[in-house]
């Protein structure tokens, strides 16, 4: 009887020992690349779901799929295929500053155009009703027909959408050159950009830690610049692991 008990205990101990030894192999560890990749994907999808549940517009950059979409509540309203996607970090004397692990895991918010889109609103003072003395400031004639978007906005290339989390998205036109920009404006754009790059790299002015760069067809880049809603968000998917 005692021998059988001992045998049973021995078998139980052996079973526990083998399970214990096998457990680390199957348990998730930080070193399991497949699990880590899945966890990252799930985290991004959760953020995307949260964005899609909100009321704000956001850009969705699929880096490996090379698509930039203007999205509202999970619906792509406009889709821009990108011929190139890059991401960069500031460097000083050939030494770059790492952006930190999983910098792209979170969505970015409050995107604003740089340079800003200009919009002059037409102001009209209504004429006085018939029979009354005319208003001194009344507009003398009916307002002119407003210009189309193409006529209204000049589009720089490149331009940037700067987010509150010190991340920006630089949009370049394929073939270079902006729309409705004179040669002087383009030269000024290029010089301003280079100076801004130097200043950012040196930690002066805008503190930017990561810049994404997409190259779009010229029409698409111009269209996005003209119609980008204010305070747009950004979520990045498909960046390869580093």
């Amino acid at each position: 009887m005692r021998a059988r008990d001992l045998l049973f205990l021995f078998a139980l101990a052996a079973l526990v020992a083998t399970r214990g030894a096998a457990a680390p192999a199957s348990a998730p560890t930080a070193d399991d690349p497949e699990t880590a990749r899945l966890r990252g994907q799930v985290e991004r999808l959760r953020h995307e779901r949260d964005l899609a549940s909100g009321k704000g517009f956001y850009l969705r950059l699929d880096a490996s799929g090379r698509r930039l979409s203007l999205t509202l509540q999970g619906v792509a309203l406009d889709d821009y295929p990108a011929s190139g996607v890059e991401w960069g970090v500031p460097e000083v004397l050939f030494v770059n500053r790492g952006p930190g692990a999983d910098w792209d895991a979170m969505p970015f918010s409050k995107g604003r155009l740089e340079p800003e889109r200009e919009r002059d609103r037409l102001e009209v003072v209504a004429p006085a009703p018939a029979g009354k003395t005319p208003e001194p400031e009344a507009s003398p004639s009916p307002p002119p027909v407003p210009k189309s978007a193409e006529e209204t906005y000049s589009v720089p290339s490149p331009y940037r959408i700067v987010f509150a989390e010190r991340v920006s998205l630089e949009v370049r036109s394929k073939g270079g050159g902006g729309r409705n920009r004179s040669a002087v404006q383009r030269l000024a754009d290029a010089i301003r950009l280079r100076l801004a790059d130097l200043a950012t790299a040196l930690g002066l002015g805008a503190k930017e830690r990561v810049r994404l760069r997409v190259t779009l067809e010229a029409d698409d880049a111009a269209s996005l610049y003209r119609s980008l809603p204010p305070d747009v968000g950004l979520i990045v998917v498909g960046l390869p692991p580093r």
Partner: protein
Amino acid sequence: MSTEPEVPEGAREGPALSIARRVAATTGALLRNRGVRVAAASTALFLLALAGTGWDFRAVAPPAADVSVSPPAKPASREAARLLAERQRLEAALRRKVPRGTWIVIDQTHNRLRLMKGEETVLEAPCSAGSGMVLKEGSGGRVWVFDTPRGRFEVLSRLANPVWRKPDWAFVEEGEAIPKDPGDRLEYGSLGEYALYFGNGYMIHGTLYERLLGRPVSHGCIRLGREPLREVWRLAPLGTPVYIY
């Protein structure tokens, strides 16, 4: 075999060699000057520093053709299986956000309307969105801004042969007195054959000014040409989502 007379190498390179010698002599003379040496070295260092300061970009390569989005046959661990299921659930939830039926997208900057069915574009037409104009009432001090709102809306009501009940600004803009009788506010025909109301006084409707379609001339509503409006009327039932950006 060439019959040309052979030209000595030195004779052919004479001028080049002469220029090179002069450049070397001048450079040597300059470099013997300590000040010039220091300036040249400083400039070189500055240019090198400038070249190495800025942004360091790396391209994102498109995925290799054999990288599949489909899940692996057997997850590596229980945790991986759980994450895989969670990923599929979230992806499905995001896919469900895209309306399956008819939906409308309006780009108010470019004044384009798209009628969608699922992921297919059924119709694309020029429209007229809000002009962005600011109207100031001279004596009353009221101000109106003629913008089209952005966001997601729904078709809340549909009207055939709509009658426009003119708001105050319509009279102020024309320099007319605001009528006391509500019946004097009604205007027939100016909204076209149909109107699809999507809230806060905004509608998609027809126009008498089709030549201005493609330009932002409205007071905030979306004006559409006769034929596209008929198509939108036919295909967009109550509850159709309207996305305006």
